């Protein structure tokens, strides 16, 4: 993926290998979680790979992306190494957030991945702020804001959509509708028959996309983004997808049937893109096996990397509370840096 490459030129085989990397990464994360190498909460993206892959294939590398807590895939899709992602899950200093963020807070500033946000709906206003900055600076970038079907009933989501429409900001709201907000089905959480109708209430154009089909996701987003680059405006897509695993590692997903899961597995996004490419003579079975082998090796290596990486040092505990370089005339740098340490005196 080179910068500024138009969407149609993104290599589909490369995107398939990204989807494989995501899946193998998540499978390995699941295993390492069970082995208690990973703490806290851990939400897996398996089944939804075509959504993020299609989205990043449709935009430039300097466009902004931001998502919720099911974020490993988004970091990988934005070129964060499997090493840095796995190390973050292990809480190591080499992690993509230095081991300070964890599973739900992956960031990659250099590659314009703006998190990794764990409060449902709370990052949607942040996304609008990113889009505001684009318009403020008169740039032709676009912000892609991913969130789940659970976010659409939060106040922050509604306020953000209204602001985006009011200020005509360049943003695509991408609802990854995997049918369940934790264990609550959309039917039990949302008064609308279809989520996309939320957009209409804010005069934002909305469409439904098949999230198991990489090409459909990519082409729809590419079309929207091209319109936004001509004249900034918000847009909304409801991407219908499915997560094969529970909400998080601790969720056996007993609220849905095996039949339902099997139905979606038969429509697997990786299998589907593979079949499309094979049918068109762009991919052989051997090549696919090679891609999969490489993904597995990369991920296995990332576990080794994470294991041998150092813990974040205790003596840097206060280094990431306040940014240095604050303009505080008269305050010595030591004092400025020691601010957090000073305030901690009460916990001795």
């Amino acid at each position, binding site marked *: 993926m080179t910068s500024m490459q138009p969407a149609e030129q993104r290599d589909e085989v490369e995107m398939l290998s990204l989807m494989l990397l995501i899946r193998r990464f998540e499978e390995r994360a699941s295993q390492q979680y069970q082995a208690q190498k990973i703490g806290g909460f851990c939400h897996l993206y398996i089944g939804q790979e075509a959504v993020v892959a299609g989205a990043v294939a449709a935009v430039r590398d300097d466009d902004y992306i931001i998502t919720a807590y099911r974020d490993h895939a988004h970091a990988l899709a934005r070129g964060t190494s499997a090493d840095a992602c796995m190390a973050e899950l292990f809480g190591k200093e080499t992690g993509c957030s230095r081991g300070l*963020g964890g599973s739900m807070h992956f960031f990659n500033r250099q590659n314009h991945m703006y998190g990794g946000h764990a409060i449902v709906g709370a990052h949607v206003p942040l996304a609008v702020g990113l889009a505001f900055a684009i318009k403020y600076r008169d740039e032709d970038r676009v912000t892609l804001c991913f969130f789940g079907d659970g976010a659409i009933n939060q106040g922050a989501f509604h306020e953000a959509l209204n602001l985006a429409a009011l200020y005509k900001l360049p943003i695509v709201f991408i609802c990854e509708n995997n049918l369940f907000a934790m264990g609550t089905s959309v039917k039990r959480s949302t008064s609308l028959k279809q989520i996309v109708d939320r957009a209409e209430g804010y005069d934002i154009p909305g469409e439904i996309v098949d999230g198991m089909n990489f090409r459909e996701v990519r082409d729809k987003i590419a079309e929207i983004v091209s319109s936004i680059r001509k004249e900034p405006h918000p847009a909304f897509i409801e991407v219908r997808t499915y997560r094969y695993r529970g909400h998080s590692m601790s969720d056996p997903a007993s609220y849905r049937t095996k039949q339902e899961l099997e139905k979606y597995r038969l429509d697997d996004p990786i299998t589907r893109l593979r079949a499309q490419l094979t049918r068109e003579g762009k991919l052989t079975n051997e090549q696919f096996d090679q891609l999969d082998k490489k993904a597995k090796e990369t991920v296995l290596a990332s576990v080794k990397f994470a294991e041998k990486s150092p813990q974040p040092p205790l003596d840097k505990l206060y280094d990431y509370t306040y940014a240095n370089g604050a303009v505080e005339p008269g305050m010595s740098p030591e004092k400025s840096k020691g601010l957090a340490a000073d305030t901690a005196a009460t916990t001795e």
Partner: protein
Amino acid sequence: MREITYRQALNEALAEELERDPNVFLMGEEVAEYNGAYKVSQGLLDRFGPRRIIDTPISENGFAGLGVGAAMVGLRPIIEFMTFSFSLVAFDQVVNNAPNMFTMSGGQFNIPITFRGPNGPAHQLGATHSHATEPLYANTPGLKVCTPATPRDAKGLLKTAVRDNNPVLVLEAELLYSSKGMVEPPDEELLIPLGRAEVKREGSDVSIICYSQTVPLALATAQKLEDEDISAEIVDLRSIKPLDERAIFDSVAKTHRVVIVEQDCPFCGVGAEVCYRIQKNIFDELDAPIIRVSQEDVPMPYNERLEKAVLPSADRVIAAVKKVCYA
């Protein structure tokens, strides 16, 4: 030096920072076309235009979050809350997103944002509009909190806040907006560092530690105490976080007696923190237990007489001072 109002001082600070840095913008309810609910942003729309002075709908959670997002990519938003009582609607953005981002991202994203507006009780606004939010925000790692009491401090602290690379809350006070004070002329750059208290009045018998609206109260009380031959030193904290321990300890080492006059409620309030630090660090300097004068621990009543009874008053400060002075 010339005499201007607290409101004008803030207005000058905003204008100067907007002029100096194209990344600075002002956003909030009624800040543009209405010229500010309290006229702090008077004239700024005419001068800087709608790209940089931006009216919002009544949507605090939304526009506070917008500000944090814009700050992630290097803009320097000034977000006005019509009152900090309304910041509670945006609490998640101010407490969860702004100060946590730098840590959560392993130092990749600092958030250079200023949240400002009136804070604390005004006059008969009732329970929902009278919150003194400083202890809530000072308890959050990653935020800085300042509380200017004079026009000079208002201007100097707001300008510093805008230039800080972290989220800073400038807690103003509605009842101070029309108060007057001497401020350097506009051609003189006025930056007052965060974390620096100021002795507003020298004294020798007792240290009255105060901030924001309790500063004019303490100064007026000191005059009355003078009549009774008690010399009170008035220490204005100016910043709650960072807290200027040095200035507090210096004053206490001089007077050996302390009354803290705070505008918040008592439980886990600012005074509790100050009190802890004094006894922990300079216990031997104290000649009497410290007394705190704060709001009563009740939601603010509308009734005028009851509201007065809830707020710190000259009578309560004088009684506290006499008690610590064994007078």
